[in-house]
């Protein structure tokens, strides 16, 4: 019973990571640094609430979340792919932009600097904590399946082969008639959609948008990508590992074995360790960040 609760909570915490990380993997696999994940998630969360509020249903919210993610991805694509702006700068700026924009429109739409009203979402009143309740949320399913499906897509389909080629050596792919730019655009859009679903999960599970509610989860997802070495299943494992650490911290906090802030830092520390190559070096796709 305790174990089940542990597993379920780990999964719930991991869903946003899994979705954003899936988006990040595809983005980085086509050569675009996924520094905008946090912004995409936050935009997704805000879009979900706007959609659900004005559309009256969580499903409309879901659609609007994806739209928001796509808009952010398009902004990034315009800057990095079309105008070849530096990807790191654009990623950071997009995060700042989304934080500002969600606050601005929160004000405009709901006359509050911090919270939206309650909206329709998934789960809620008395749905309980059981297995059924947890899995009645469609985003949970998408989240659990995203990385395995992405793994299949990357390593078992022609699309994936092209994606991998583009991320490693775009000029080689181009000589074979692979449409590099269009593939990068599609990768980025897919990233926007997946990451925004991660944000939508938070907002719709919460039935509410709160200023900066993603709270750095996009960067945890980025950490998982690096720690998982851009391999979907490893990345999924990293997301679950980070989530499990958090669950452990939540469940043990009363015991105060470790000061909680140190548990929170696990993903960041592990990422740095992975980059330093202390336990097997984490090597990104060769063309990552290079303007094409």
């Amino acid at each position, binding site marked *: 019973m305790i174990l089940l*609760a542990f597993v379920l*909570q780990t999964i719930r915490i991991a869903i946003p990571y899994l979705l954003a990380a899936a988006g990040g993997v595809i983005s980085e696999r086509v050569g675009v640094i996924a520094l905008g994940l946090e912004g995409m998630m936050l935009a997704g969360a805000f879009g979900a609430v706007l959609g659900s509020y004005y559309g009256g249903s969580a499903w409309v919210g879901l659609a609007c979340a994806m739209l928001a993610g796509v808009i952010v991805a398009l902004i990034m694509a315009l800057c990095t792919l079309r105008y070849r702006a530096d990807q790191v700068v654009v990623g950071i700026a997009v995060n700042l932009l989304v934080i500002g924009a969600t606050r601005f429109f929160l004000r405009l739409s709901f006359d*509050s*600097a911090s919270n939206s009203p309650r909206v329709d979402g998934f789960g809620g*009143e008395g749905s309980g*904590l059981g297995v059924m309740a947890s899995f009645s949320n469609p985003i949970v399913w998408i989240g659990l399946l995203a990385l395995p499906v992405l793994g299949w897509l990357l390593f078992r389909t022609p699309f994936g082969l092209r994606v991998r080629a583009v991320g490693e050596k775009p000029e080689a792919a181009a000589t074979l008639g692979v449409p590099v730019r269009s593939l990068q655009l599609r990768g980025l859009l897919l990233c926007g959609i997946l990451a925004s679903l991660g944000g939508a999960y*938070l907002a719709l599970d919460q039935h*509410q948008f709160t200023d900066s509610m993603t709270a750095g989860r996009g960067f945890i997802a980025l950490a998982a990508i690096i720690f998982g070495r851009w391999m979907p299943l490893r990345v999924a494992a990293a997301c679950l590992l980070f989530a499990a650490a958090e*669950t452990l911290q939540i*469940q043990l906090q009363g015991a105060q074995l470790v000061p909680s802030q140190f548990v929170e830092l696990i993903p960041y520390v592990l990422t740095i360790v992975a980059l330093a190559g202390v336990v097997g070096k984490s090597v990104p796709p060769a063309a990552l960040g290079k303007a094409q």
Partner: protein
Amino acid sequence: PSGATIAPEGEGLDIGIVFDVGGRGDKSFNDGAYLGGLLAADSLSARVRYIEPGEGSDREAGLRLLAAEGMDLVLAVGFIFTDDVLTLAKDYPDVKFAGVDYALSFDDAGNPLPLPDNLVALKFREEEGSFLVGAMAALVGESKKVGFIGGMDIGLIHKFEAGYRAGVMHVCPDCEVLVQYAGVTPEAFKNPGKGKELALSQYNQGVNVIYHASGSTGLGVFEAARTTGKLAIGVDADQYAEAPGHVLTSMVKGIDAAVFDAARAVQDGTFQGGVRVFGLAERGVGYVYDDNNRALIPDSVRTRLQALEEDIIAGRIRVPSTR
């Protein structure tokens, strides 16, 4: 300063309010101050201006902007304004200032340093209100475990925790209080996702009532209460609307009343600088007991709470403010 030339006209009082991070619409203490402003506007026909500063130097600048415009009363909402409001009160002796949750400084002998005549510190004994809701949680919860969820792990929030724990222990010495904090950065006040998971984990461990003091993070606690069908206790303002049927009560701070009082005092010319503490005795803190939650609270519990309240007011019970 910039607005100095646009001096406000008319007879009514001019009130400026500078909000803490979170700003208007936080469904918590900023909104409480806002409500007080509205009240003043209504019944004193005051003109009220609001500013939401960013961090750092903007806080002082926001206060200064209002003071320089010749406001009659400038309110700073939140402990974080402590230094700024003190500086401003010295710089603008003709303007009255009020600092909500103002953090007092003490001299070496442990006595609070005196405040300027034009500055009033509005302080609340959150621990007293927390004590009562703690007692209520233990009495109503039908469990030996009760929960507390704080936002950022800091002394200010420990005050809520300490009072709450004392309340629980007072009526149920063998009860256990599960205490969790959402983090160590200010983001811990803005992370409802984390709040929900913390609450779910407590409910899962047999807790039936959770009291939160965690800003927007607490919205996740209410969500968890809805999900599990259990109870939560709101903070600062009446948070019944966050989860109707699942909000046992809220520990309310009478910020609105305090703000309104300050405004009226300025209007009447009875404004006095110094510290004003709002505890149970002053009806500055308390808990919500109304039509919404009457059904959740048995009469016996209500009676017991009233007795405890009297004990506290009479000094028979001393509520700790630190853990």
